[in-house]
């Protein structure tokens, strides 16, 4: 209803003062920015609370068998033992004395950290540590830089995960958008029917298609690498490094696209078709506007909020598969780390990784909510935001 205020309004009444229109437009713009900020902050607060609850549940699940307690105790013991061996005063102690000393000190320390307090109270400390990924030392795994701090191990691998999934989802979004648009233009054509027939193939996850793609392109044709992120040894020249990485990303991205593109393009094409049968589109056609203009202004614009919601829901589902996806392609991200942590039963890493996934999910939701606010005028102009 109020959308015309933003676009400046059409010049129906020539006698209206131009300046006053400009002033009201400026006012509307400021107001819409304020709305946007308010919406964003609200969403952010809601998400932080949501993540906190999610992490708390994760910790409850993890500590059902006292796993987190054991982690904490191990961290304390390691610290005490390290201090005892480093301290020159204890050099002359017999080993029995030293063990006795360490045990006493561990008991004291665990009291200091409150391990003797009831779990209900301690769980909130775990929550704080979990939220900051401050989960002590890993039991087996090490970061490439040699650190055993869980946080370092995880953060070192985060960029490769973000690069792969960022690129893949970026390509997926625009490819599906263009495919959906062009299919809606040629409704009922062979391509349209083919995509409809192929839509059920999205039932299989990306890692599954990855197996086939590796089989074809790596094992059989031998044109692309089996997996990994760069050639071994990694090239020194940044350009060569980027090229080698791009080569290693072809198969994972292909698998990601194959598993999602048909269903996504089909769904979005349906959205486009629904919106292209609206009366105002007919009106625009009658006015003689060009096809591309109709598509951009009258079809794409109102469909985008729906598309972004559908994309958000899909991404939430796809994150789940990321662990196996990275494992199949041997991509050194947090998913592959998760797989290795399972292999050696490295509890701190597993718990911290779960928390990190909760963060990534929340971040995805937030990012898309933000984009949603940008494209949906109802959010900017007063309204209550997404209707759910």
């Amino acid at each position: 209803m109020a959308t015309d205020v933003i676009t400046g309004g059409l010049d129906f009444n020539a006698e209206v003062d131009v300046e006053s229109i400009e002033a009201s437009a400026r006012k509307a713009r400021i107001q819409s920015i304020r709305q946007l900020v308010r919406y964003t902050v609200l969403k952010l607060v809601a998400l932080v609370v949501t993540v906190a609850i999610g992490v708390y549940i994760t910790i409850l699940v993890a500590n059902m068998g006292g796993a987190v307690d054991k982690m904490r105790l191990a961290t304390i013991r390691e610290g005490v033992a390290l201090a005892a061996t480093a301290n020159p005063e204890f050099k002359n102690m017999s080993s029995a004395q030293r063990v006795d000393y360490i045990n006493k000190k561990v008991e004291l320390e665990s009291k200091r950290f409150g391990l003797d307090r009831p779990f209900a109270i301690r769980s909130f400390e775990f929550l704080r540590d979990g939220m900051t990924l401050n989960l002590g030392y890993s039991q087996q795994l090490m970061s490439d830089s040699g650190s055993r701090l869980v946080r370092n191990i995880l953060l070192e691998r985060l960029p490769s995960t973000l690069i792969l999934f960022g690129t893949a989802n970026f390509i997926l979004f625009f490819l599906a958008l263009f495919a959906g648009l062009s299919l809606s233009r040629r409704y009922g054509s062979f391509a349209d029917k083919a995509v409809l027939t192929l839509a059920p193939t999205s039932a299989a996850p990306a890692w599954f298609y990855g197996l086939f793609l590796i089989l074809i392109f790596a094992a059989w044709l031998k044109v692309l690498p089996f997996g990994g992120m760069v050639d071994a040894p990694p090239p020194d020249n940044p350009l060569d490094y980027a090229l080698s990485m791009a080569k290693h990303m072809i198969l994972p991205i292909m698998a990601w696209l194959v598993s999602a593109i048909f269903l996504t393009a089909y769904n979005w094409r349906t959205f486009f078709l629904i919106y292209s049968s609206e009366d105002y589109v007919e009106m625009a056609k009658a006015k003689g506007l060009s096809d591309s203009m109709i598509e951009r202004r009258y079809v794409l614009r109102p469909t985008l909020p729906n598309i972004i919601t559908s994309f958000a829901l899909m991404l939430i589902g796809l994150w789940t598969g990321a662990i196996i996806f990275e494992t199949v392609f041997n991509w050194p991200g947090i998913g592959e780390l998760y797989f290795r942590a399972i292999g050696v039963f490295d509890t701190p890493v597993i718990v911290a990784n779960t928390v990190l996934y909760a963060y990534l999910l929340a971040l995805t939701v937030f990012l898309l909510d933000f984009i949603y606010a940008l494209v949906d005028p109802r959010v900017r102009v007063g309204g209550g935001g997404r209707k759910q």
Partner: protein
Amino acid sequence: MKGFMDVLRQMAHYPTAVIGMVVIALLLIVSIVTPIVIPYNEAVRLWRGGENVWRFYPRNAAPAWFNWFRSTDQAASIILNSAEGDVESTIEQISADTREERFSFEFDFPYDTFPSEMIMFAAAKYASKQPFIEMTWITPDGREIRAGEFSAGPNTPVRFDQDTRLQRRLERETGIKNVPVVKGLFDDPNIEGLQVLQGTYRLDATALLFEPESALDLAFVSYGQVHGWAGTDHQRRDLSVALLWGTPIAMAFGLLAALLTTVTTMGIAAFGVWVGGWVDAVIQRITEVNSIIPLLPILIMVGTLYSRSIWITLGLVIVLSIFGLQIKNYRAIFMQVKESAYIDAARAYGAGDMRIIFRYLIPRILPLVIPAIVILVPSFVFLEASLAVLGLGDPFIPTWGKLINDANTQGALFNGYYYWILLPSILLMVAGLAFAMVGFALDRVFNPRLREV
């Protein structure tokens, strides 16, 4: 019933749906027949039995039907077991205690490739003196090669490949240095290089038994390059056991998870809409929190720390999906339905809350729910496979995902054992596609609006 036939008739318009239904029917038949033919305990015993169960099976053999696609005929396994009556023995008494027993293992070898290995299994009963056995290899062109001698214990496998003296003899015979024994025995001497001589081979085993009570059974196995319809893995296990047993597991897991999660989600959405107010708001917030909790990592965590039982996994999947994002969709629809006039009418005649929810709200939404359940099945089938591929499969039951996991850890793709990954993957794909295709068609039958666009 009439409605059901109606749906079927409409489904027949979609060829993909017909294919899907046939495939699902086949999978269900396999799911019912397999547990009857191979009971659960037997399947677990077979799959975890190790070498003793599978010693007559070749290692890493491709399925037999691979031969149809190859120009060369790969060797199949040949098993001749005197205990099973495959071979008759002739007995000659030499003295009061000692007798000579002659076994003659005769077999056709019409293949183009050599066997992967050859073993003679001897099982002897004796009090103190072990029976002694001498073997002679007779080729189709009549050459006789001494193929070793050994003393038989209660369970003695004699691997031809490990006989260095036989190898030296074969080196002289074939003129090739370090020739593997199995290849040397089947080599055609008139052709340069190693080439199979096809025809009827004979292995004569002459056993001397030194005690009247002692007895001897011999089993000769020439292991093939291909085996059965599914091939074998690195532990000689026949993959058909896992492929067959994977079917009921995948079906049960997928169908139960899809059905239970959908029903609970729908129930909660209906309840929230009907009661409204703060209950609805709380359900909304729980759904949002739930969408942040990463499902697979939680499943993995529980699998690592507590239990890998497939039923615990199933329960957990359902618990975590009760407040799934689907609630939002169902809620939107229930909201519309709630405002309908016929609900007011029901309320006017004094229907209770439960009656309205179960008799008016839910039936209205069933056309949306039934396709949703069917479409959901593949995602759970693949979820189970995903966990197994991560090495968190149920420790006892063989499944499709566990085969892929085994194959991956043994480097199947790298070593060229494609069948090992292809067979379970194709089954997963076929099962997933069948349910997805039927689900899509059901969606169009139940929701005619979709057909217009």
